[in-house]
């Protein structure tokens, strides 16, 4: 569906995206992760056709993203809440739907569906300025869904969102994935990427430093499980590849009084790959 080949974008002399290549298959939920300034948003802007790569190429279904026919396939949820605050939620969705040529009954049905997905049907007639931050984020997603895009791009959709709204957004994304939508998600939150994404790409200083399935990245770079075991002899911390075996062995030696296990995760994999925490 999407193919980036050695895509490079410079701002002045600085390569903000440097020779990035990856592929996203149809129906996949792909996470693009990286610290601030890693080049994620610039990569997204090139994928949506807002920026042109200086070298390399970006193709969606084999075509340039700047083509009008390709633009109709895209739904974008920008990092900022891209809505008209003085209009109601319904007026916002009518406008964005009409921009994609939707009218009449079909437009009303799509608006209804979008409100249902983001769980805002009851508040549809309120002005966006009266919405909470989480509700605005959800409406931001709804505005991208009206024309039934086959590729949905979400740039940090859960920044500043309360846990309840975040879960609601996750549910919406799972629902869309079930419907066959290809999704690209950039996020600061590795935990949510681990839960949601089929594959992730990790960017750092404009380069794609790793790209694989979440499981593979964790198994390759997530390190070992860390067991903190308390027995009559005291507390011990053990790093192991086979935590279950280790627990059985220790329990045979001495009765385990308490046990805490830290499994390898995407956060550890990220730290091992980039040498920094995501919020650095």
């Amino acid at each position, binding site marked *: 569906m999407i193919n980036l080949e050695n895509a490079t974008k410079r701002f002045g002399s600085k390569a903000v995206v440097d020779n990035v290549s990856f592929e996203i298959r149809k129906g996949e939920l792909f996470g693009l992760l990286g610290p601030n300034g890693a080049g994620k948003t610039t990569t997204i802007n090139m994928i949506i056709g807002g920026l042109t790569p200086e070298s390399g190429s970006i193709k969606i279904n084999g075509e340039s993203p700047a083509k*009008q026919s390709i633009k109709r396939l895209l739904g974008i949820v920008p990092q900022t809440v*891209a809505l*008209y605050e*003085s*209009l109601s939620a319904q007026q916002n969705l009518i406008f*964005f739907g009409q*921009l994609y040529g939707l009218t009449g009954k079909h437009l009303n049905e799509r608006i209804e569906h979008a409100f249902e997905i983001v769980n805002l049907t009851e508040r549809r007639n309120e002005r966006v300025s009266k919405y909470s931050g989480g509700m605005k984020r959800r409406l931001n997603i709804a505005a991208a869904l009206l024309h039934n895009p086959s590729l949905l791009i979400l740039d940090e959709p859960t920044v500043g969102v309360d846990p309840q709204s975040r879960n609601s957004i996750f549910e919406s994304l799972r629902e869309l994935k079930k419907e066959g939508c290809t999704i690209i998600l950039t996020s600061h939150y590795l935990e949510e990427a681990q839960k949601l994404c089929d594959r992730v790409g990790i960017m750092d200083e404009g380069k794609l430093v790793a790209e694989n399935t979440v499981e593979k990245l964790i198994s390759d770079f997530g390190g070992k499980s860390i067991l903190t075991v308390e027995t009559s002899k005291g507390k011990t911390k053990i790093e192991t590849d086979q935590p279950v075996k280790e627990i059985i062995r220790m329990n045979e030696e001495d009765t385990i009084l308490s046990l805490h296990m830290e499994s390898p995760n995407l956060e550890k994999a990220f730290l091992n790959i980039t040498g920094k925490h995501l919020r650095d």
Partner: protein
Amino acid sequence: MKEIITLTRKDLQLLMLDKTSLIVTFALPIVLIALIGSVFSSTFSPSLGITSYDYAFSKVMFWGLIGGVASSVASIAIEKNSGTIIRLQVSPISKFDVLLGKSLACAVFLIASSIISWVFASVLFDIKTKSILFLILILISNTVFFTGLMTFLSSFVKTERAAGALSWSVLQLLACFSGIMFPITIMPAWMVTMTKLNPVMWPVQAMEIALWKEITFDTILLPMGVPILAGIIFFSISVYLFQWTSQK
């Protein structure tokens, strides 16, 4: 075309919801016509052939246009700042269409301001109108000019605050050297020279012609032609700048 009209309608809706825009575009010229017209009513002798209200309307209606331009520049700055411009750029309409839609909204706003203040001045103060047809044509040419200027100014602003500062300072400066703020007849020579270089002078002259001067094809050609040409040039530069800055 349908998408452009959608965009225009939405922009008009936003402008109509903004009380400050409504005040500076519609209420300000009406108040100023009444105020300036009444203050100077005794200084306009019948031999001049025009009343203080005729004169006040021909100048003050431009403050409505200036207010409308400033409001539209601010609305584009808000759009850039809030990120909605990204949605417009990603949608299947071209950058040219986006600017055209916004320009049409501004044009409708400006035409409405001119018509409302003209109706007000005609009904209440019985101002002279030499030719309604030429007045309509001149309102259109003035609108083309000010709309083009609006798109040009909006190319340089990213925030609402910058929009307010830039548009009001540029427009006031242009008003200063055009006959809107001070009559050209009382200006020193250097100021008259500056006025001749200012494209805003032509719409001001055009209004005087449509309202109370002798109208011939020759007298109207430049005052109508220059603003239309300048408006189109401003708009074309803005389209180029819009495409260029979106790559930055």
